[in-house]
């Protein structure tokens, strides 16, 4: 039997030594596990449809230079934090100094704080399911630490832009840790963008602690270029009566993978996970979600939509695990898919594991094409065929895009969707 491939050697050496000592030690410790870590192959169940898109070469193993100045100004309203190649740029960031709210780069934490953080990093993720998150833990060079004291409310969304400059091959390891205290409220936008054309890997980890009664909304906007392989993981733990809402808007690439794991640990917690993905050309996108109903009386609601054009490939895997003590759980998962071409592929897999006997659990998955009767109805009113296709495709995802609670993100999504339509539907 052939041994499973492992990471190219260059990935095993972390750069950037400016972190506090406890975080450097954590990184070193995680690094030892990387040496023998098998990379996912098509025989790895949770990478079955996507492993062929993961193409890590030795020259991608080095960290992208962190000392460049970003050319892009962040044209987003409100609070913003800029990261370049995984390292925070304080001069391009703009966020409040509010009572009870701390927004800090990992590099600025003192040793005590860093030691406390080091103990908590990785505890929100199931490492077995997100193999490549370990790579981030061994390689991150900076990170964003957000902490909200009890009752603290961030009055505007915090927009975090992670940019990579792919002038040469390499990789970046953005990291975010959020600690939302009791009854605090926060809306985050994570936007991933890139410049340059060299083959690079972006490997992200975001962890969110949602304490009792707290409410966190997280928006993830994936818009990197055709040269960027993106493997990200988000781990969320929710305590009693907390609420977590996630909106993912993803545009395909050579490899796009996001794992979202939510643990409902306290009674009455609820989460809502929405996702929209569009792929075209030979692009790929894979969303894997896991909702762990651990405590009783929790609600989860999940709605994902994929649209695949040309020869592209979209994957959705939604797992709901209702533990034995999670009585009165209410879980609803829905995944609809639209194929815009005969050459496109969509794989969808709902997974339900239920060990409690008094639960409500619904799931549905469909794959279809644009409805010819609807197209005929629209064109019979003088609407052009291209516009009819666009209207019907938008109709498929409008409901989800409209729910994104930040206007600037909705606008960005619409602009990118229009580009997608321009390339997908020919002018009639």
């Amino acid at each position: 039997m052939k041994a499973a491939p492992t990471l190219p050697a260059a990935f095993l050496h972390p750069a950037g030594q400016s972190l506090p000592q406890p975080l450097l030690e954590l990184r070193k410790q995680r690094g030892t596990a990387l040496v023998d870590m098998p990379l996912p192959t098509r025989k790895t169940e949770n990478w079955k449809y996507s492993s062929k898109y993961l193409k890590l070469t030795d020259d991608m193993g080095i960290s992208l230079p962190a000392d460049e100045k970003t050319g892009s100004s962040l044209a987003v309203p409100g609070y913003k934090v800029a990261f370049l190649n995984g390292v925070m740029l304080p001069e391009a960031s703009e966020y409040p100094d509010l009572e009870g709210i701390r927004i800090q780069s990992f590099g600025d934490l003192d040793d005590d704080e860093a030691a406390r953080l080091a103990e908590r990093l990785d505890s929100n993720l199931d490492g077995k399911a997100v193999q490549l998150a370990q790579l981030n833990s061994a390689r991150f060079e900076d990170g964003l630490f957000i902490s909200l004291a009890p009752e603290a409310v961030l009055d505007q969304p915090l927009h975090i832009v992670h940019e990579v400059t792919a002038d040469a091959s390499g990789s970046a390891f953005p990291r975010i840790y959020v600690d939302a205290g009791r009854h605090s409220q926060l809306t985050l936008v994570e936007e991933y963008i890139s410049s340059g054309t060299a083959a690079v890997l972006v490997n992200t980890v975001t962890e969110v602690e949602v304490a009792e009664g707290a409410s966190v909304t997280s928006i993830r906007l994936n818009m990197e270029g055709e040269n960027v392989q993106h493997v990200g993981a988000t781990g969320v733990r929710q305590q009693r009566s907390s609420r977590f809402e996630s909106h993912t808007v993803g545009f395909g690439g050579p490899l796009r993978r996001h794992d979202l794991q939510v643990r409902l640990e306290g009674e009455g917690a609820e989460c809502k996970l929405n996702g929209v993905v569009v792929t075209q050309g030979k692009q790929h996108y894979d969303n894997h979600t896991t909702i762990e109903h651990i405590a009783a009386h929790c609600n989860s609601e999940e709605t994902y939509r994929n649209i695949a054009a040309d020869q592209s490939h979209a994957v959705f895997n939604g797992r709901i695990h209702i533990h034995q003590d999670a009585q009165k759980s209410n879980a609803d998962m829905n995944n609809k898919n639209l194929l815009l071409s005969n050459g496109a592929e969509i794989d969808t897999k709902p997974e339900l594991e239920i060990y409690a006997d008094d639960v409500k659990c619904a799931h549905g998955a469909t794959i279809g094409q644009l409805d010819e009767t609807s197209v005929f109805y629209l064109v019979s009113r003088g609407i052009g065929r291209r516009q009819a296709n666009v209207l019907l495709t938008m109709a498929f995802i409008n409901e989800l895009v409209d729910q994104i609670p930040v206007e600037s993100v909705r606008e960005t999504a619409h602009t990118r969707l229009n580009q997608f339509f321009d390339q997908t539907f020919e002018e009639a």
Partner: protein
Amino acid sequence: MLSIKNLHASVEGKEILKGINLDVKAGEVHAIMGPNGSGKSTLSQVLAGNEAFDVTDGSITLNGENLLELETEERAREGIFLAFQYPVEIPGVSNLQFLRTAVNAMRTHKGEEEMNAAEFMKLAKEVSKQVDLDPSFLKRGVNEGFSGGEKKRNEIMQALLLQPQLAILDETDSGLDIDALKVVSDGVNALRSDDRAILMVTHYQRLLNHIVPDYVHVLAGGKIIKSGGRELALELEEKGYGWLGIKDEDAATDAAN
């Protein structure tokens, strides 16, 4: 205005229309009646340009222009409007967005400026009153969750907004109660004008009490077998289709196909 000559059309290799001849002049209202399966709906769909039907012989011209050369949307822009027998539900596209997109496609075609959202909203509210549809229907998905009667009123509303040259009404009376029939008929009568023609396709003559046609044609077995004036419809009501020698089995066989 509309001239149909020796029209043959088939669907999935089965011939449905077997030589239709029909001339419609501006200002006229024609009713096409016939039993189920006689080809009435096929004729409507072929006129609108549904690609599921193949025209195998004959011609259709609108104001001298060959309609068969035009795509569905081009026919619509030239003034063909089909009120569907079964209007399509399109969740996710608001009725307002749909109607405005359609109206603006027409305006652009005519070299007129597009209407902005506010202008259109005003117009749409007026027209929705004309067909007795609450303006809240504008915000809902196209025909989404509309009752049968609401869907038909929405069709007539579209005709009033798009002001077609030739309005084809496919079984517009089906599924309407007497009040809704009155509202829909008033809408259609509002469409009547000297430069517009109306082609009503219907199984029953009751619609013709409200919208009085100039000519009535009987379609059976894919051909027009009899034409006459208003009195022909009344005669059909009295005597049934059997009077014209259309066997019930014929109708049944065609319907099954």
